[in-house]
């Protein structure tokens, strides 16, 4: 997932630093050179990187910091702090209108994911018992209005549209309509446009003054490269940007654009889009993202995500099992059921510290429906004894299980292998658990 390779890079660098006793100026420079390359490889804009590195260097060379900490700790602390500052420290909420409806405008380049994000946001609000209205103001892209209508229908959220008419008129009428029909949120999907397209940028500015939105969210593809700063700057110059939505985070991009856009706009990243499914949309946690860059992992995000899906009791049970490490194939089956609700396993793994590599190993283990059915059949074909103690499953038992579940011995083998990987992961997790998630934002050695 994003930042995965970046954090492993940083970890490698800092491991080297930690191994040394004292940090000389030369050490700081050497470490920061690697930080610089890692950030560049992650697509952070080179100017942002330059600023960042020089800020860290300036601070790192201050003697007062040196006095109270070990050298390694000092650099890590500073990099962490500056990175956190750059990302924005807290998760940001949506602005509210003092009088409903709250108007939200989605803006950005072509293909960034505005339409899908607008629908996902409507879905999120609807789940919180709001009554959003979607507005189709992309009059240019073929079938864009239709796309929003289809999504609206799926969500049972009404979509306001006036065909290919002037979108400024459309949004004005939409706002009137929303007031009359008592929608408490109005989400406007605008056409994708290049930041250098004067005419279309002007159209956005006119829309803004027509409806005075509480939120103008710049939708940014997480895979964006160096140009992110130019895009962000131009949109910021023309509109009162209030936030950013980072999309396609389910890819394997390292997502340095997040840092670039933050640095340029100062606007908080409010949401992260993490998949094509309509509920793959969540609050963005900048502080945790910064610790993720540093290789802290995002255990908190993982737990939050897990808690939202697991019901209380199951969670407690599981926690118990993790502690005692009595994790059986039956639990594994149940676990998979839960994970299916939570999203791809490898994605979750990437969010845990030290598990980046593990996530890769588990890549083949995405919980898709078919595979899940197979897994279920295999486990159900085992005896109780076998489920509790898979070590006894020898080759004749494997054959029997394969025959009983209508699968192959290879399938059985691969499941057993996956299970043992999972067990290892549980062990790591419970070790972390002992180290305490609660001491958030701190390295154990700091």
């Amino acid at each position, binding site marked *: 997932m994003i930042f995965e390779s970046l954090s492993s890079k940083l970890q490698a660098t800092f491991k080297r630093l930690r191994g040394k006793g004292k940090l000389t100026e030369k050490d700081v420079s050497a470490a920061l050179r690697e930080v610089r*390359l890692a950030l*560049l*490889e*992650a*697509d952070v*804009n*080179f100017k942002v990187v330059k600023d960042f590195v020089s800020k860290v260097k300036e601070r790192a060379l201050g003697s007062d910091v040196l006095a109270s900490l070990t050298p390694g700790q000092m650099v890590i602390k500073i990099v962490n702090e500056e990175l956190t500052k750059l990302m924005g420290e807290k998760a940001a909420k949506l602005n509210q209108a003092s009088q409903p409806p709250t108007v939200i405008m989605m803006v950005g*380049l*072509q*293909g*960034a*994911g505005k339409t899908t994000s607008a629908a996902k946001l409507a879905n999120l609000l609807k789940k919180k018992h709001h009554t959003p209205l979607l507005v189709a103001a992309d009059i*240019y*892209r*073929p*079938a*864009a209005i*239709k*796309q*929003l*209508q*289809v*999504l609206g229908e*799926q969500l049972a959220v009404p979509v306001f549209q006036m065909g290919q008419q002037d979108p400024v008129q459309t949004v004005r009428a939409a706002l009137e309509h929303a007031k009359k029909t008592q929608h408490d949120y109005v989400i406007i999907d605008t056409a994708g446009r*290049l*930041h*250098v397209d004067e005419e279309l940028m002007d159209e956005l500015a006119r829309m803004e003054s027509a409806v005075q939105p509480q939120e103008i969210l710049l939708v940014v*593809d997480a*895979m*964006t*490269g*160096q*140009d992110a700063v*130019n*895009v962000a700057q131009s949109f910021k110059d023309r509109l009162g940007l209030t936030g950013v939505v980072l999309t*396609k985070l*389910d*890819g*394997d*991009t*390292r997502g*340095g*654009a997040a840092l670039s856009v933050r640095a340029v706009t100062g606007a908080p990243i409010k949401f992260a889009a993490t998949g*094509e499914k309509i509920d793959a949309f969540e609050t963005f946690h900048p502080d945790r993202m910064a610790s993720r860059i540093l290789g802290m992992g995002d255990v908190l995000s993982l737990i939050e995500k897990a808690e939202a899906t697991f019901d209380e009791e199951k969670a407690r049970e599981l926690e118990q099992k993790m502690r005692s490490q009595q994790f059986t194939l039956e639990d594994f089956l149940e676990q998979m059921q839960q994970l299916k609700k939570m999203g791809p396993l490898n994605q979750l793994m990437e969010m845990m510290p030290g598990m980046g590599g593990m996530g890769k190993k588990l*890549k*083949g283990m*995405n919980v*898709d429906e078919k595979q899940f059915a197979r897994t279920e059949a295999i486990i159900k074909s085992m005896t109780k004894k076998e489920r509790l103690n898979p070590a006894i499953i020898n080759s004749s038992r494997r054959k029997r299980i394969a025959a009983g579940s209508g699968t192959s011995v290879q399938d059985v083998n691969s499941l057993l292998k996956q299970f043992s990987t999972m067990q290892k992961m549980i062990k790591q997790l419970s070790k972390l658990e002992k180290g305490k998630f609660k001491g958030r934002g701190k390295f154990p050695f700091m």
Partner: protein
Amino acid sequence: MGLFNRLKAGLQKTRSNLLGRLGELFSRSQFDDDFYDELEEILIGADVGVETTLEVVEKLRTQVKAAKVTEAAQVMEILKKQLLELLGNERKPIELAAEKPTVILVLGVNGVGKTTTIGKLASLFQAQGKKVMLAAGDTFRAAAIEQLEIWASRSKSELVKHQQGADPSAVLFDGVNAAMARGCDILLCDTAGRLHNKTNLMEELKKVLRVIGKALPGAPHEILLVLDATTGQNALAQARVFNEVAPLTGVVLTKLDGTAKGGIVIAVARELKVPVKYIGVGEGIEDLQPFDPAAYVDGLLAQE
């Protein structure tokens, strides 16, 4: 000025005329560390990527030293030659199959411009007097079929479609058969956007390839990967994985009408030897150009 405009202007420009930062850079009399550092920044700033940039700059340094070059213009020449070596010097247009139809499969991650590129390509072939058919292989995204339908009518092409949610392989299978039955010269196959790290979607793609090959042995004749010029280093990962699943015959680099430079195609060409065939320079049906490597390199290096 967007890269495309520079690109248009690029060839007319004389070397000494290069404005701005790079001009300034190359007007220096000394090729010292600062010079190379700044060149590094320019290339990285164009999304060429750290690895490729470091390699290019290092090689330039060695060559400049070895040949005892002192003229800025000569240094520029060496640099351009190097970049062109990586990119491939020649234009590589789409070649038609010996027997019609030529089947062209268009791939890429979400939102890069696959459908739009198909519309533009259809119009291009139409203008050459070819009979063109489009197949609506994106059965996933809402209204993707309707979008392609509009491009079919704009480009006066025929269209084969199923319902949303249908099996894309089935649609494209029908497409190939229909194109053969109706004597079309070219079949352009649209596909759903897929992130390359989604195993199930890449598996789906393998099936699409198998099925097309079954309908017409030797097809698809062209497999084009659409890359968005705005994308950074991830484009290389995309190209790698797509190329593994579906051996690419070319890249289309879209959205060059903005300020993004799409330098990652240099890294892609360097590693995978897949040529860039076309560039997208706008949303209109005419906004597609054959890729001209020399003009592109000129545009890339002409910083404002």
